[in-house]
């Protein structure tokens, strides 16, 4: 009894429960066929959502009004920059990665500069900067049909025992982020700021520096996502980041992170990313149209936020 109620109190448990239900429904429908393949595919595709979801989680955790809307544009820019720099050559792999991450540093720094210098809400700042970033990506990456270096393509699609290697690496990244969140001064500061920015300042936390680092982290993770996503899908495309705007926010919310700030949850991000993918797979299996899939995705997010949110005044 005690163990169960303790487990139920962990917000991430719901995303895993949902994941299980959806998977079982799918497998039941197919008569037990393809269960493992579906999970394996979910691990592959969910990986990218997890990477950006982690960054978005830190941003959202710093409190109401904080959200990074420039993630899709950053993914597109980072992916096309990296592809062009590497030109399909394995030798340039590291250089490509560095360029991609530097692109993230630049975007994150720019985002924060807008927030700070123009004193505008982060939503508007990241939105405006995403216009510029996306345009840069379009101008730079138009007609770009460069294949990723073979090593990158191999790495992002490799599997051991049917488990994508990339998923294992990103699982490691998630563990690292969990440590960052719970065991470092930075992580504690993020949690404190999200609960009460003024109290955090009065407790001696350098609020502005922490916010700067948080927007930086989010943009760097988005860049990383662009890098591996371009490798995975055989090259960069300009709209490859599009679906990650909602996805990054959705996995954070469904994963049990509080949109009111101050409470974050890393395992939930994984659960939610897999859940989202499996949900779409299930609807596909049931023969639902694209429209129904979209509606379900939207309604689930609204439902989760309605049930979970609203415990604390926003703004």
């Amino acid at each position, binding site marked *: 009894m005690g163990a169960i109620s303790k487990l139920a109190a962990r917000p991430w448990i719901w995303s895993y429960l949902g994941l299980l239900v959806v998977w079982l429904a799918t497998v039941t429908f197919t008569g037990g066929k393809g269960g493992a393949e579906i999970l394996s595919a979910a691990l592959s595709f969910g990986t990218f959502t997890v990477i950006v979801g982690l960054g978005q989680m830190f941003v959202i955790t710093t409190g109401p009004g904080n959200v990074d809307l420039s993630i899709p544009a950053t993914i597109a820019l980072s992916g096309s920059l990296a592809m062009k720099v590497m030109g399909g050559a394995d030798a340039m792999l590291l250089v490509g990665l560095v360029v991609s991450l530097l692109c993230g540093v630049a975007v994150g720094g720019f985002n924060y500069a807008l927030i700070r210098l123009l004193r505008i809400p982060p939503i508007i700042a990241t939105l405006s900067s995403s216009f510029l970033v996306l345009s840069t990506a379009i101008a730079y990456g138009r007609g770009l049909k460069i294949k990723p270096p073979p090593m990158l393509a191999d790495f992002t699609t490799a599997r051991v025992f049917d488990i994508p290697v990339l998923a294992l690496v990103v699982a490691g990244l998630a563990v690292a982020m969990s440590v960052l969140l719970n065991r470092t001064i930075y992580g504690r500061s993020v949690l404190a700021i999200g609960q009460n920015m003024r*109290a955090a300042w009065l*407790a001696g936390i350098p609020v502005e520096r922490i916010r700067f680092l948080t927007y930086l982290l989010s943009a760097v993770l988005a860049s990383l996502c662009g890098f591996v996503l371009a490798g995975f899908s055989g090259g960069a495309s300009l709209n490859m980041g599009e679906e990650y705007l909602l996805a990054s926010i959705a996995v954070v919310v469904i994963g049990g992170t509080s949109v009111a700030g101050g*409470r974050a949850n890393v395992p939930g991000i994984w659960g939610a990313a897999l859940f989202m993918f499996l949900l779409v797979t299930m609807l596909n299996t049931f023969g639902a149209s694209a429209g129904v899939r979209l509606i379900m995705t939207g309604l689930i997010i609204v439902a989760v936020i309605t049930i979970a949110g609203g415990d604390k005044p926003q703004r």
Partner: protein
Amino acid sequence: MPEAPLPIVDFSNVAKSFGAVRALAGVDLTVRPGECLGLVGHNGAGKSTLMNVLAGTLSPDSGEMRILGEDIRQRYSVALAHQMGIRCVFQELSLCPNLSVAENTRVVHPTIKGPGWRGRAGALILGKLDEIFPGHGIQPGDHVGDLSIGKRQMVEIARAFTVTAAPLHLVILDEPTSSLDAVTAGQLLQYMRKAIGQGASCILISHVLGEILDYSDRIVVMKDGGVVAERPATGFSRDTLVAAMGTVARAPAAGQAAQAADRREERPLSVRVRPKGRPGGAALEARRGEVIGLAGLAGHGQTATLLQVFRAARGRDPDTEVTGAVALVAGDRQTDGIFPLWSISRNIGVRSLRRMLRGGLIDPAAEAEMAEDWKRKIGIKTPDMNDNILSLSGGNQQKALFARALGSDADIVLMDDPMRGVDVGTKLEVYDLVRAEAARGRTFLWYTTEMDELKNCDHVFVFRNGRIVADLARAELTEEKVLHSSFTEDA
């Protein structure tokens, strides 16, 4: 016609508690038509709570409430208060800054609508402004956000006196002159008398005792949630009023204080600060190992001065000297102190994370150790320091905030009226701890609204209108002196 008309307000035995704190301990209050009731009392006497009950924003725990003879205790609300002709001018402004003066007037008068409403609302407020504050220089089309704080206050006051559908019986003026200059304050008080002459009533709350004595018919003095004196205004003088607000003056512990004063100059300086914003007034100086009291009425610049010190410790401020690391103990726990999602031990440790690092990561053992250490030292009553901070009573939450500051590396501890709503037992424990820490060389800047706490201080600075107006060594400290400096004779 009955001999005496029905009183507008007739409260008896009204009580209200916030947790363990009794804000109102059974108050009787009567306001008769055509009189001005002056209401005075020191911080925490219960004035604001009583006025909030009267305005309908707080509902009391018990007691009888009659307005115009009607028993309205069960169904009282802001809307009903307005309907029954009770208006309130709160210290916090209740105007919408993005609307014009006329639009703000319309917001409280639902009957002003239809074509030409703007003109009618404008004429209504302009007429009232002209009547109260001749030469005010405010246009009905002015946006409130663009007006100075004084002019906003004038609009707020004039709006309270406007009448459309609902009648006007009683206007509560809570420190109405705080942001007005001497001329407009005089205009307001004269208008108030005129309105009273026409049958309205007022409750006037002010820290300017001259206003209370000159303009009220009757004065009620509150203390510790109860009424301690009630007499016609002519029955009070400034001195008797101050005496009624305080307790009988006790002789201070002269011996200990004299000793502290002797050594004062030899000690190294910890803080020197002159409150910003208002010219004039003295500077506050704190030396190592001293407990310095910041006194005066709430909201007269004490917290702002503490924050000025806090900022100066982190950045550069040529006007403020701070010689060591600073920690702050918040008084408003919910907005300034507590992290509501965290355990007690995390709440305590947040100011000392650097010390708990092992190999770059926070060591949970070190955090738990610090928590247990302070649980013992300061006596936090909880089965488990890993429980949520909100599982504690208010007093114990406050202890956790003390532990956060005292357990840190700070040389200077700023205390922002931290004993609000804390029980006596906790207070005494914390006083001892503060004295012990001061003896070990820590400096305390202690803003308090409670007279008794000032007796723990080596030196007390009294604030009024953002300035330091009195500088009292412990030997000279009496309650009467603090009250005298806190309340001015004139604006």
